[in-house]
């Protein structure tokens, strides 16, 4: 299986990444791109800063992708997660999955995102318009609920 798992400050170009997954038998490529959203509950977001745990983050992402491979017949997976300072509308994360058929590709991409959101050591700080100090983002219950649905199956 083609696999590419990267934690980096650099931006990515979707086409370049996705095309690595255009292998002979791939019929379906599902990709997820997470963006810096402007709107937060406490104001207008100017930028975010992403902290991570270098020694652990890569391992955690690899472990998540391995779990996805065990569940679905995948032909390729790309995970690129950016760290550092990112402004509104910048790309934060790419998860792309290739499979013969679409169901596996959709399910695996969503599975990887749900695990990443709750298991991979990244922490996000938001810089809000008019506030000098950044605010650490709180973990969301909805992310734990999203994870729980995979534990049932």
């Amino acid at each position, binding site marked *: 299986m083609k696999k590419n798992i990267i934690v980096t400050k650099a931006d990515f170009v979707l086409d370049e990444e996705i095309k690595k997954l255009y292998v002979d038998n791939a019929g379906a490529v599902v990709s997820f791109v997470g963006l810096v959203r402007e709107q937060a509950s406490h104001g207008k977001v100017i930028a975010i800063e992403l902290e991570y745990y270098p020694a652990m983050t890569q391992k*955690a992402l690899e472990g998540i992708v391995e779990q996805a491979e065990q569940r679905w017949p995948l032909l390729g997976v790309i995970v690129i997660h950016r760290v550092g300072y990112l402004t509104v509308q910048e790309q934060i*994360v790419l998860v792309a999955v290739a499979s013969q058929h679409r169901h596996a590709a959709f399910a695996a991409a969503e599975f990887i*995102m749900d695990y990443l*959101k709750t298991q991979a050591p*990244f*922490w996000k700080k938001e810089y809000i318009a008019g506030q000098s100090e950044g605010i*650490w983002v709180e973990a969301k219950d909805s992310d734990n609920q999203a994870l729980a649905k995979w534990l049932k199956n």
Partner: protein
Amino acid sequence: MNITICYFARFREKLGVQQENYTLPKNSTCKEIKSMLSNRGGSWQEVFSCTQGVLVAVNQEMATLDSVVTDGDEVAFFPPVTGG
């Protein structure tokens, strides 16, 4: 025995420490370490007296508070993750 303890994100900022070397009795659990850190008082107590929202990893793998730590381990404490 000696271990390394790392702190991330809100914890790192609040404690003003990213990493420290720490000496402790053999066969300590993460729960015992957490309790010892809380006993330092001040912001340490604020962070580590919480019963929820303190995650722990041992040697870069997610662990639980019951996990037993051995000499040379890297133990990390951090809040729930918020990437993606």
